[in-house]
């Protein structure tokens, strides 16, 4: 449904250097599936999500929806927006504090001139789990709890009846006990409405909870992707292995030294090698420091981008 082909997104950094936030990515989100985009901060996952939404223009490559490439002009972009919607991390910031819940949810339908606004808003709020919806119409965001606010944001996205939802850290700023509800909501939307979702997160537990597929990013590239159960229980790429190993339950800890480097100074073409635990342990080959890896295609089966994995 939503697909990114050979996507590259660059920003002009300080001093004229270009920061490659997304460095060649193929990703696709099929109908009725939840894909988790996992990585640390700075890996480009948020930029990728925003580019898929059309909020950012790629330097090269293309984003396409339902087979048609995205056009960034007027009406067609508007039509696209009705199909693909956004849920941001911070529900308090995502809502205009001066707007009531009704106005916040009605904003989308109003922009697109959807008739029968009130029933659209009421139905969106109910689908998001705020029942009875009328009780919430006149509330302001600061009067609601974190979980309720996030539901309002989701309702705002649902009001346009999208086919794809892109959620950037949807539960990161919510209390732990409230996470379950919001995640269950996303699952239910998939089951009941056939909604696809791309969930950007650094939380592997979240991916385990709700994702059908997982894609792991590092420094703008996809390093591994595949069905959740495969990738998270039997990771192939050293980076994925390291990420999983630092989770509290895992028996063995592989802690990578240092931190993700500055995107304007990516170490040659194989970005992980300075931190890769296999290289550190002496298992690396010459290829690791010199040969760049191909960009993984966007297929549903497992893929790994590593010289040391056959």
């Amino acid at each position, binding site marked *: 449904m939503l697909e990114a082909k050979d996507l590259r997104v660059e920003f002009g950094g300080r001093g004229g250097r270009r920061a490659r936030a997304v460095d060649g990515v193929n990703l696709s989100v099929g109908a009725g599936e939840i894909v988790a985009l996992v990585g640390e901060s700075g890996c480009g996952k948020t930029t990728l999500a925003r580019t898929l939404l059309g909020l950012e223009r790629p330097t090269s490559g293309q984003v396409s929806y339902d087979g048609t490439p995205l056009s960034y002009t007027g009406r067609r972009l508007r039509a696209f927006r009705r199909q693909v919607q956004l849920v941001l991390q911070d529900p308090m910031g995502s809502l205009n504090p001066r707007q009531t819940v009704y106005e916040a949810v009605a904003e989308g339908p109003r922009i697109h001139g959807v008739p029968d606004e009130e029933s659209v808003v009421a139905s969106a709020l109910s689908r998001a789990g705020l029942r009875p919806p009328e009780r919430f119409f006149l509330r302001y965001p600061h009067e609601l709890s974190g979980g309720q606010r996030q539901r309002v944001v989701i309702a705002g996205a649902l009001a346009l009846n999208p086919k794809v939802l892109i959620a950037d850290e949807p539960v990161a700023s919510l209390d732990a*006990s409230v996470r379950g509800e919001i995640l269950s909501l996303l699952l239910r939307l998939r089951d009941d409405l056939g909604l696809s979702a791309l969930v950007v997160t650094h939380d592997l537990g979240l991916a385990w909870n709700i994702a059908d597929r997982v894609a792991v990013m590092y420094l703008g590239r996809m390093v591994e992707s595949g069905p959740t159960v495969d990738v998270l229980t039997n990771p192939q790429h050293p980076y994925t292995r390291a*990420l999983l190993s630092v989770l509290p339950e895992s028996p063995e800890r592989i802690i990578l030294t240092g931190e993700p480097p500055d995107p304007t100074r990516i170490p040659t073409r194989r970005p992980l090698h300075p931190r890769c635990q296999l290289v550190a342990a002496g298992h690396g080959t010459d290829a690791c420091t010199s040969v760049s890896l191909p960009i993984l295609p966007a297929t549903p089966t497992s893929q790994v981008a590593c010289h040391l994995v056959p």
Partner: protein
Amino acid sequence: MLELDELSVTYRIESGDVPAVRGVSLSLGAGEAVGLAGESGSGKSSVALALLRLLPRSARVAGRVLLDGEDVLAMKWGRLRSVRWSSASIVFQGAQHGLNPVQRIGVQIAEPLLVHRLASPDKARDRVRELLEQVGLPAWRSRSYPHELSGGQRQRVMIAMALACSPQLIIADEPTTALDLMVQAQVLTLIRQLIADHGISLLMISHDLSVLADVCDRLAVMYAGRLVEAGPSSGDFRHPYSQALAAAFPTVGDPASRLAPRGLAGDPPDPQRLPGGCAFHPRCPVALESCSTVDVELRAAGLDRTAACVLVGD
């Protein structure tokens, strides 16, 4: 070496009194690491600040905080100042609280040393270098400003600051929130190693039970200003809230949590409008009729464990 005896904190605001902490009793031995878990509104940060009397004037504190036998809450100002940082120090969330953006970090780390007159300026510089090394930062970093450091590095600086006066107790308030997984692991390893090397007691506060279980020997869970469970970090939780909190962070690889996110309905309660009886009952999956009227104290719930639930114990 640290003992909390019925600690209560009430904030006074325009709309009335907010009982953030309602009678918490906890004890911490020398060299022991205890984790305090809870969500927003549980009162855990208030407990941390109360330990060193860092709460605002509008807060009323009751109970006792015994640091090596001495009640911090009853200390005179001079004694309190000497205790602060030299006996017990706090590691805040690095990005937000503790770092002055216009001072170099070397100066900031040295500050407690100079304030407590534990070192001359020259000796302080050596100590700063030593501390930076202990936390894994190169010595030249002492000339950097906070904005030049990454989140993980800033957190290490906060830890270095906390260690400056060689305290016996460190209170870490959400030290790894907002950090990446990998960096979080690095910081936790560092903390574990430091408290082991120097025999420091640790009180770590977080909303992430798995992080706490990793570092601490014992865990205490707070809800609506009270302790609802306390016990060793290994071993299962008995209180329904602790269980729900633990379930919210699923174990990757566990088929039971696959496509089955677990959480609680409702939201953490507003301290000004606490439900009657057991504060947790509106959200409790196994609440009984009596739970809405009868409040529960901590009671024995297995090996070295206490939980505040009628369904626990006999």
